[in-house]
């Protein structure tokens, strides 16, 4: 909601219209200054209808714990304020920044004014800003000077010295060189001192895989010195006899350092690539779940499992289910229930569209992390993750979790929308049907009612009553009209019963002749103006069907023939057995039905435009429902020369005859 308003407001701001692709990116680091930079960027981009990026370039060197924490804090802030966080790995920061900037169509990069330069930079005369400016091409660079912040050191920073960790590496470095030295001494009988150098070189390369920069340098240096001292003649002195040996020593040293560094870099790159690959796989997994699931419950079930596996946690989901606020009950697939306090925290998270709980700044005493499930426009629920006690959530994992929740949110939103759509469609359909029925009933019943009323009034008139021919006509009108109303009401009731599924079939073995004679008796009057003929097979088996319903079907079909054809038309009823079915054919030689309408006539309320009198249009659709309930089929086809045939067939069931005593 809030975001919507924000968007609307910014549209009305004329200054926005100019800049369409105006993305801003700020680069941050574990430094506390980044906080200022992030806030600054947010301020300037909210006026410009931007989504703004926050970039952190990972280097191969590991961060200290304090730095990790700071970094995490900064990234969280960035997210909370609405920035899009990107983390990339690069050895060269400038390259990394430019690469990401170009990829994301960034038009402006914001960086903080560097407070200090590392020794290496000073030695090599590098200036970070200069480099950035050099390679930035068309991207604008804004350098922001943060306000006075307390920092311990200013000026030059010394290389970081993590005592514990590095100590282990230095120790490894030294001890390996010594072991190799002993090996070399043993091999001295077979090889000469130049080959020994190769062995040292190989060792340093291999060490590069396991150690970081400075321990490698130490290994290179140490191995060079030992090589000089022990192996280069004159042995056991540092003095080098031949010039070529001095040259070798210097070359060796350089090659060792370079190779060592290279392997180290390569190894780190491999690690970072693998990490990236893992992230991508994890992201892919959740996309996969969503696109392969058939319904939303499956999505939720699999997502919960994935999160629980990836983060070694327990997951709870509460949804809105389309309402304006969270449901009282958690989703049934959740692994744990929220107590009152947790529920209120979740609710807070929902209302404020912000993460809360563990690993956040808000209400962080909880052991659960609450993430609002925000889809494109709405919050559809809250994801609550209960981590194990000792769990620490690093930046990448948090990123991943955030991504998961967004995807889940979107899947849920899509499902909700589908449901709404379905409901709307059903509503529209039933309203349509309702209207049709109302129209049908009122029109269809009004006509005969009017006839009856008129006729009855006519009969009250003395003059008209005494004339017997008039009297008879009026009386016939009344009878005919009431018959018609009876039929219409009957049809409507049948349709309702068929639609609601409440029709119980009263299946029995029947003599087809019975059904026919009942039908004909009832229709005697209607058929008097038509040429009716019946051709019924003498050897028909008994028919297993609902007597009354089949009677209905035949009545409706014959009535249909009468209603659509002028008097004098021939109507033939043919009944015969063919294969495993009994066929019923009502054939007339009247007008026939256009081919396009032959299927449609069986639709509810369908009436051919040329029909003589009214009729609700239900008759044939009821026939179809009944025949289909009997596992039969009904259809219409035009005869070769004239008229139409309505044909239906019913299966012949096997009758079990027991021996009768």
């Amino acid at each position: 909601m809030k975001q919507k308003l924000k968007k609307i407001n910014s549209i009305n701001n004329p200054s926005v219209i100019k800049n369409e692709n105006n993305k801003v990116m700020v680069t941050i680091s574990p430094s506390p200054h980044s906080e200022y930079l992030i806030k600054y960027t947010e301020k300037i981009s909210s006026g410009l209808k931007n989504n703004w990026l926050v970039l952190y370039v990972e280097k191969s060197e590991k961060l200290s714990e304090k730095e990790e924490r700071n970094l995490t804090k900064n990234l969280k802030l960035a997210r909370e304020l609405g920035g899009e966080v990107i983390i990339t790995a690069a050895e060269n920061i400038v390259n990394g920044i430019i690469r990401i900037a170009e990829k994301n169509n960034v038009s402006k990069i914001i960086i903080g004014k560097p407070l200090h330069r590392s020794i290496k930079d000073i030695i090599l005369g590098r200036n970070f800003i200069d480099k950035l400016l050099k390679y930035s091409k068309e991207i604008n660079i804004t350098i922001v000077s943060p306000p006075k912040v307390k920092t311990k050191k200013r000026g030059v920073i010394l290389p970081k010295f993590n005592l514990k960790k590095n100590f282990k590496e230095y120790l490894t470095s030294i001890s390996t060189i010594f072991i190799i030295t002993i090996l070399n001494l043993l091999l001295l009988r077979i090889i000469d001192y130049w080959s020994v150098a190769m062995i040292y070189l190989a060792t340093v390369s291999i060490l590069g895989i396991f150690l970081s920069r400075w321990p490698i340098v130490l290994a290179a240096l140490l191995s060079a010195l030992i090589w000089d001292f022990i192996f280069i003649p004159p042995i056991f002195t540092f003095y080098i006899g031949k010039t070529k040996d001095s040259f070798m020593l210097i070359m060796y040293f350089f090659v060792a350092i370079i190779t060592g560094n290279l392997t180290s870099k390569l190894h780190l790159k491999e690690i970072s690539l693998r990490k990236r690959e893992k992230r991508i796989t994890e992201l892919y997994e959740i996309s996969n779940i969503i696109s392969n699931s058939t319904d939303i419950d499956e999505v939720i079930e699999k997502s919960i499992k994935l999160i629980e596996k990836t983060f070694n946690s327990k997951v709870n989901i509460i949804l809105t289910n389309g309402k304006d606020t969270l449901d009282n009950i958690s989703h049934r697939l959740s692994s744990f229930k929220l107590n009152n306090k947790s529920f209120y925290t979740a609710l807070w998270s929902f209302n404020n569209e912000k993460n809360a709980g563990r690993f956040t700044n808000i209400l962080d005493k909880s052991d659960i992390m609450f993430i609002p499930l925000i889809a494109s426009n709405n919050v559809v629920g809250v994801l609550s993750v209960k981590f194990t006690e000792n769990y620490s959530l690093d930046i990448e994992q948090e990123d991943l979790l955030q991504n998961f929740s967004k995807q889940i949110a979107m899947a849920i939103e899509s499902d909700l929308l589908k449901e709404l759509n379905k409901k709307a469609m059903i509503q529209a359909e039933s309203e349509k049907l309702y209207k049709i029925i109302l129209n049908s009933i009122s029109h269809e019943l009004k006509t005969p009612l009017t006839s009856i009323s008129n006729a009855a009034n006519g009969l009250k008139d003395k003059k008209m009553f005494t004339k017997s021919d008039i009297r008879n006509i009026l009386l016939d009108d009344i009878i005919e009209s009431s018959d018609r109303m009876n039929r219409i009401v009957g049809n409507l009731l049948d349709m309702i019963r068929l639609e609601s599924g409440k029709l119980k079939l009263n299946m029995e073995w029947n003599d087809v002749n019975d059904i026919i004679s009942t039908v004909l008796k009832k229709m005697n009057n209607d058929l008097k103006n038509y040429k009716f003929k019946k051709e019924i097979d003498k050897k028909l088996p008994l028919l297993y069907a609902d007597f009354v319903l089949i009677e209905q079907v035949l009545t409706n079909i014959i009535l249909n023939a009468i209603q659509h054809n002028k008097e004098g038309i021939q109507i033939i009823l043919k009944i015969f057995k063919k294969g495993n079915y009994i066929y019923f054919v009502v054939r007339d030689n009247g007008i026939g039905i256009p081919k396009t309408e032959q299927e449609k006539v069986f639709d509810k309320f369908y009436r051919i435009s040329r029909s003589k009198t009214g009729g609700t249009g239900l008759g044939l659709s009821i026939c179809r429902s009944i025949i289909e309930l009997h596992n039969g089929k009904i259809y219409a086809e035009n005869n070769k020369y004239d008229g139409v045939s309505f044909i239906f067939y019913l299966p012949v069931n096997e009758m079990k005859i027991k021996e009768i005593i």
Partner: protein
Amino acid sequence: MKQGAVILVIDDEVQIRRFLKMSLNTYGYKVHEAKTAEEAMMIITSVRPDVIILDLGLPDMNGFDFLKKLREWSSIPVIVLTVKDSEEDKITLLENGADDYLTKPFSIGELQARIKVALRHNLKDESKNAVFKSKNIKIDFAKRIVYVNDNEVKLTPTEYSFITFLVKYSGKVVTQNQIMKELWGPNMQDETQYLRIYALQIRRKIEEDPSNPKILITEPGVGYRLVVE
């Protein structure tokens, strides 16, 4: 057939009562009316009608219960007024004391026919007669021979029992269950196909046009009726 027979019409709707009274009076019957079951009971005990026409939708008691109560002490024939598509109800009524039924809306002709049938002397009288005659059928009970157009017709024992059972009801409808019970005992209740087969065979033998029976009539969903004149 009796002229001047007394008929009791039990229906809570004034229009139906009026209509029935008018039509039956025209045909020479004396008609009493009752609006409720209670009223009906009083009239039955005081007046002793020959036939009762009963509508099922009474305000104070439903038709089934009324019939049950009535049949505890009276065998006055009862014709029930029913609506379409209530075959189950019709069967239950017929097996619980009703003699016949009329489906609304009905014509005066139908009503007349039913009343005539109801007024016939019931089963005891009929079977005492040695011979039964209706249309072109003649049944000689003593000799157990059936004649159609004065020609002897061979009926199997079952077919004979079928016809004579219906004769006992002299024109009233008989449910399938009742027939089957009579012919085969209580264990064959679901095997209606046999009835159909037998009816078909009988029709082939005694009807002029078996596909358009005029004597042995099927009452759809309910049972059979033998038309008597």
